[in-house]
């Protein structure tokens, strides 16, 4: 029982790092953003596990903050991608030019 929570945390961290590979690989900006989405969700779970494992209820509020504000990044991405669709400013342009 005492081993369950740290093991779960380790597992969630492994998922998080696996998501990193997709951030690295891409190939499109959308791929990177959706990996960030995964990593955000996994971080929330990880902090909640930590809250229970270390008996720190305030960490649940920290999770609440992450989850409340994570969508802001997606909205920012949508805004700049919309503004620069096809132009050199698009987040994919750099990758495409290589």
């Amino acid at each position, binding site marked *: 029982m005492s081993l369950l929570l*740290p093991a779960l945390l380790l597992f969630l961290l492994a998922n998080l790092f696996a998501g990193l590979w997709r*951030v690295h690989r891409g190939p499109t900006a959308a791929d*990177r953003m959706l990996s960030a989405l995964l990593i955000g969700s996994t971080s929330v779970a990880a*902090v909640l596990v930590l809250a229970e494992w270390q008996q720190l209820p305030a960490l649940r509020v920290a999770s609440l903050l992450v989850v409340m504000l994570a969508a802001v990044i997606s909205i*920012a991405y949508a805004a700049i991608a919309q503004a620069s669709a096809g132009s050199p400013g698009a987040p994919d342009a750099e990758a495409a030019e290589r």
Partner: protein
Amino acid sequence: MNLAVDLSIAAGLVVLAWRSLAGRDLFRGIVMYIVFGLLLAVTWARLGSPDLAMAEAAIGAGVTGALLMVAYWRLRRISPAEPADPSPRRSHLAAAVALLSTGVVAAIGLAAVGAIGPGGIAGRALVEALPATGLGNPITGVLVVFRNLDTVLEVAVLLAAYLAVRAVLGDRGETLAQPPPQVARLVGALVGVVAPLSVLVAVYLLRVGSYLPGGAFQAGAVLAACGVLLLLTGRLRATADAGPWVRGSLVVGTVVFGLFGVAMLAFGEPLLAIPGTWAVYLIETAMMVSIAVTLMLLFAGAAGLGGGRR
């Protein structure tokens, strides 16, 4: 198992820091940096510091991520990406500096691990003096009462940062380029839920900050992130002129804190003595407002804020 968790987090932080800076794809580096912020929040949680985890969550997830995205867009508008350069030349000096920095950090880390003793003098004095202030949260105690000179100056630094932005914008009467507001219906639903909830959470953090993890910085960061959301979705607009409310909000933190500090001199108390818990709440509220408005303006790259289309 504990060691495995800690080593994984540490390794992850180093790898993310490296990948944020290395590589030629700037956008990928930005996403890596956002992930770095999230892992950092997990790190603070692991280290048993909810105050820092909250601050990192609000600022890293809400403000910095969006700020970097918009900054990237503005950068690319100015200078479109050039054809790929060949790999940057390896610099022997860079390698030497990297090794030196790693050595210094490792030495400090080893010394800190070995030096953990029974609390230390300042810590014990803090624990003894804390109940007299009426506060239950030692972090708030240090920030607002015991070492409040640092905090006053920090709020002043935020104001200075805003003034620096104003200086860069100059007298042209314009703001930096703004990305198009996102007005899809689903986004509107998100704003309808997150904006009121953010205000509620911010007030909650301010209220409980005196005896539970929380406080002015966390509350201000949450409001700032909410403000970023409103700016991105067109509910708020960046303007080239700062109205009286904006100006007032920017300075209220520094002014209130400074006034309290100086006013106490008239009563024979030392500089920056805090008369009671009511003063702490007042100061923290003022700080929260200043932090929120300053961060929002720094994100927008504008002098002021105005009402949006809806």
